[in-house]
């Protein structure tokens, strides 16, 4: 753990986005999460989603899905794609 950086565990930060703890608090009480979740659970949801989206790249690049999903560059690029998709009026 000491030799690892935060982003290797999926904790890359985003300027406009929320932290995992903040998201956990925000979702608490909603229909999807009536019981408050730990921030690590939120991170797991996030990384699971990222891993699904990283599959096409993993096939081409030879890197593992897990590795790509945690890569801050991939996460930033994906955020850009999602933003552009939102601008075009297409829902996720």
């Amino acid at each position, binding site marked *: 753990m000491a030799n690892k950086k935060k982003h290797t565990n999926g904790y890359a930060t985003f300027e406009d*986005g*929320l932290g995992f703890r903040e998201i956990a*608090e*925000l979702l608490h009480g909603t229909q999807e999460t009536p019981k408050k979740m730990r921030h690590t659970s939120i991170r797991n*949801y996030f990384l699971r*989603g990222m891993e*699904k*989206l990283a599959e096409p790249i993993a096939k081409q690049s030879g890197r593992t899905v897990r590795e790509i999903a945690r890569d801050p560059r991939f996460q930033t690029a994906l*955020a850009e794609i999602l933003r552009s998709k939102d601008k075009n009026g297409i829902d*996720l």
Partner: protein
Amino acid sequence: MVVQKQSPVCYITTMKQTHKTTTGVFMSTDLYYKHVGKFDLLNREQEFKLAEKSANGCVRSRHLLVEHNLRLAIHIAKKYSKTKCSMEDLIAEANVGLCKAVEKFDHTKGFRFSTYATWWIKQAILRYISRSTTVKFASGARKKIYQINVARRNYYDEFGNYPEDSELAHLLGMELQEVSELRCANQWPINLDQPIGGEGRTYGELIPDTSTADESEKLDHKQIIEQIKAKLSSLKPLEERVMRLRFGITDDAEDTTKFPQSRSNQ
């Protein structure tokens, strides 16, 4: 050589610009060398007499002093032949320095004229070389570039490969950034429209355009984005919501604006 009644500087400058002798005949460099070789070196007494007369305003003596030392000018100019300047220009500039030395020479101090003239000739040549480059440097920067080049050569002679900029900076006691900038500025510019290879191609055609992406890369990139977009539908609602919040791209703005309130309620 026929001596004209004009100042030595004008006389030599005319020769530089037109490649003519004072008699009006065009002269190649080889012929010029032969011509200059006709003038013998002066001994101390001859030199003293000519310098004395020259100091008293005798133009003829001044010209003779120049002519008999033209070989010295060529000798020094040859040392700078490895620069990108042509030999003719270097010799012409050396001659200008020689003329300056004749004007300034003080024979009463007892030194030989060649000792004094050498410095003026070198100064004239070095000034010309620095003027002839596209990028102008201050004399201090030029000196540092010279030191860098010498250090690189010495390093190569000793170790068989060229040193890194950081090593050069350490060796010369300079800042790394300074060494990098001076080395970058020291590059010799080339004409991009210059033809190469005899097939009508130019240097400009060989430089890749980095502003536009490679077509195949663009296609791959597009395909990946399409595949990712297709995968978006496989996300679970909670995963999607977490990702939106994490990236800060949620369109229902109340989520983030409500957040501080919701936190304070807990």
